[in-house]
């Protein structure tokens, strides 16, 4: 086209753009215009919603069961390692969980039972408050009950990651079972990350960074609150836990930055 396009001509291209029907040259022109035109950007957003709605015009067809099974099969390895169990927003249980023991405390069975009782009492009170709340909270109760069950494991250690001064307000505690090579990370108020960055929890045998093993990759909550996350990693006496910031979405195979939080287990 020899003459510059008018704005109304650009507006006309918006429909073809959201339908994916523009010719390559028109698409290029419109994309360039779109980058600097808030009017067209808003228009495109509205038309994209129409495109989404058009899908509802189609008579529904039941997908075969194999479809979800195929998706499940693809995500299973990662999902098994990174199941996320959101904790309550008010943080009451999270604080109870995080404060069950001090740094590097080896849980004795009696203490573990006492801790479990505290958690259960808190959960009960919490449940009373939330008895009319929706399933979200029940799921969170289930998450903390898992943490409680792990805390009752006589082989479990409770490690507070406070060896180094971390970001203001950030707290993290690990309950780790060496018998089962798995654990729960309870973390609160980690700072938000830049795009394409993630947090990564490491199990570090004897604190030797070169031997660090990936335990968990996660994003912090966007709101205030406690996250409870399960992980699996080889755990031996002397395994140190550390959280670093890594490139997303899959994290790194070895730590590429200094830990923002780190905690050592109790000495034998």
């Amino acid at each position, binding site marked *: 086209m020899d003459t510059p396009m008018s704005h109304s001509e650009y507006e*006309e*291209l*918006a*429909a*073809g753009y*959201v*339908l*994916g*029907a*523009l*010719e390559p040259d028109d698409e290029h022109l419109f994309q360039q215009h779109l980058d600097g035109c808030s009017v067209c950007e808003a228009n495109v*957003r*509205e*038309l*994209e*919603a*129409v*495109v*989404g*709605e*058009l*899908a*509802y*015009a*189609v*008579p*529904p*067809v*039941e*997908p*075969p069961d194999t*479809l*979800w099974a*195929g*998706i*499940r099969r*693809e*995500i*299973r390895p*990662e*999902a098994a*390692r*990174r*199941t*996320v*169990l*959101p904790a309550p927003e008010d943080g009451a249980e999270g604080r109870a969980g995080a404060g069950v023991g001090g740094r590097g405390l080896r849980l004795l069975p009696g203490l573990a039972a006492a801790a479990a009782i505290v958690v259960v009492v808190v959960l009960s009170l919490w449940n009373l408050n939330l008895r009319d709340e*929706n*399933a*979200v909270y*029940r799921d969170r109760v*289930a998450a903390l009950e898992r943490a409680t069950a792990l805390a009752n494991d006589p082989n479990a250690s409770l490690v507070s990651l406070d060896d180094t001064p971390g970001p203001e307000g950030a707290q993290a505690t690990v309950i780790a079972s060496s018998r089962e090579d798995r654990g729960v990370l309870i973390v609160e108020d980690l700072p938000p990350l830049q*795009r*394409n960055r993630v947090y990564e929890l490491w199990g570090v045998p004897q604190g030797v960074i070169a031997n660090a093993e990936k335990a968990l990759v*996660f*994003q912090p909550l*966007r709101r205030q609150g406690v996250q409870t*996350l399960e992980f699996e990693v080889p755990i031996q006496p002397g395994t140190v836990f550390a959280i670093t910031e890594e490139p*997303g*979405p899959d994290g790194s195979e070895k730590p590429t930055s200094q830990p923002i939080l780190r905690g050592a287990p109790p000495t034998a």
Partner: protein
Amino acid sequence: MRGKAYRGLRDGQLVELVAQKDAGALEALYDRYGRASYSLARRILTEETLAQDVVQEVFLSLWRDARRFDAGRGTVATYLLSMTHHRAVDVVRREENLRRWRTSDEGLEFEPDPKARVEEEVVTTERRAEVRAALSVLPPAQREALLLAYFGGYTQREVAALMGVPLGTVKTRMAAGMRKMKVALQDAGTEEHPWTRQ
């Protein structure tokens, strides 16, 4: 059952959990939109296997990079169904034989004959009726241009050739048609009616 725990969550909350690799949240979103996504992919591609591949890619894409969803740009439903549409169109453009096959029955879906489909299912009837009503009031030439692009995956130039009109006319018809659809659907209400697995 664990899946029940996700039912009370809004779509955006589920996406947030998916970003943290929560498989249950992804399954909950699949329960809500997998059927719609599959139905759309089947309509565009006709072939079951290709449609399955597209839907699988859509949900795996969400799994791999849920942060790409921007709540400021639209709903989760729009995001997933738009992605389904784009991917299905990509496939159909690679498979010329599919497109030719599709052309023969294009438009039949939207004949204003609602009685034939009344008893199909209950859950989605209302929303589908609204979208179909919005389509049915479009001038036929505008509707045809939209549907050839949307379900056939044709570019504007190809639509122009199929309809025997200049490219500029197709651009105008598509723009006018989409504008009218936007107004009609806004009038009908924008509440989401996700298709759910029974």
